[in-house]
């Protein structure tokens, strides 16, 4: 699996091929960092940015924020809050589920119930 920086660079470059607004400069402007900083992040020369900037980057590049945060070694603060409320329970749950196939995990996600119309 690619590390955070090269992954970001790859996604951004793919978008830039079709749309010049995905240059380092313009993406950096949109998420509120210096272009030189984003460039260093893409080369893994500095650690990944803050959660806020990663979420902004995910939104700009059309990526999943949770996936980018995980690649950056972070857990989003809303998930941290959830886990901190019941740490033992969630730790056990996640360990139990680590090898489950996606389909099985999806079955645990709460569905919007459909009734009789």
């Amino acid at each position, binding site marked *: 699996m690619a590390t955070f920086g090269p992954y970001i660079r790859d996604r951004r470059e793919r978008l830039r091929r079709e749309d010049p607004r995905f240059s380092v400069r313009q993406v950096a402007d949109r998420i509120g960092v210096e272009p030189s900083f984003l460039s260093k992040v893409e080369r893994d020369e500095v650690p990944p940015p803050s959660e806020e900037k990663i979420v902004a980057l995910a939104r700009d590049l059309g990526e999943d924020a949770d996936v980018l945060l995980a690649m950056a070694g972070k857990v989003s603060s809303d998930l941290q809050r959830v886990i901190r409320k019941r740490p033992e329970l969630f730790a056990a749950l996640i360990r139990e589920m680590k090898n489950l196939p996606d389909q099985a995990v999806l079955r645990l996600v*709460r569905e*919007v119930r459909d*009734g009789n*119309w």
Partner: protein
Amino acid sequence: MIELTGSQLVIRLPEVHEAARLTIDFQRTLRIPDDDREYPLPAGLGQFPLRHVDDFARTVPAPWIEHGGVMLAMYQAEALWVRFDGQYPFAVKIATGKINAVTGEGWRDGLNRDPQDYLTAPAQPWLDGYCVEKGVIRQFVAMPLGRGYSAEEQITGRADVGGLQIVAYPMKREAFASRHTRPGMWLGTAVFSKSSTGESLGMGLAPGGRMRQEIFRDHSDLSDWDQRHRARCFVHIANSVQWRGITGEAPPTQPVTAEAYRRARIPWFDYYAADLKALEGSGILGRLRSVVQLGKDKRETPIPENDSVAIDRVVQLRRGLERSEVREGAF
């Protein structure tokens, strides 16, 4: 399956295709004047928060539990639009009070042509109202059920259902594969009499002002859609008093006024898809009275203000929206 993530409905049908994913949300927006002028698209100003009705089983009206689904809060005369986002093609039917918003017909299962009773996402990125003429919709505006304004009441004479109903059918895996060679590049082939008091049913949607919006003709074969798999959801609409009663909380949002919209210098939008053809409007929906027209007939003032609004800035959006192109505004 449909999952509620934040304030978005997320539809995933991995049994059809791992990429079969569509998100739907409900955008707060400016109610455009109901003055028979045609307006461009007002911006989305954030999502209406959604809740599972099952989380409030003791306090929601009994029919809501029967219907299942989610709920949101709207004030009388507040407007909304429905946003679709995803890469995988879906055919989506939308009804208000079980009256189809594209054809004006009563609810029918399955997809139908002649007339086409659905829209296709993501080619159609949003729906703002009832398809009353070719290229013109009348905006979805919330009105209390039982007062006669909703499309449901005007057409059926009854205030039995209310809310908004959605069903989405994915494109068949084979049809998707045959036209989709590069991941992420698919851009689509197209995107009375009162029988009850209505009090317990909450709000219905009624036709408001006129807006330029095309509902696109589906150029796929009807057989390209997988009608064996579907995801559907009933979206209940509570008024502000009802929302407090159900949740114990104040309604999470306030309606947007024309003055605040103008002061915040939020633009308007036009959406072009030169390669797509628009559906003809529905005769049934075209004959509905708008909220203001019906209010005049009834000698009521159902809408607090209805002054015309000057359009100062219109942003052009083209089909195949770039990521940086959004129909949003902020205060």
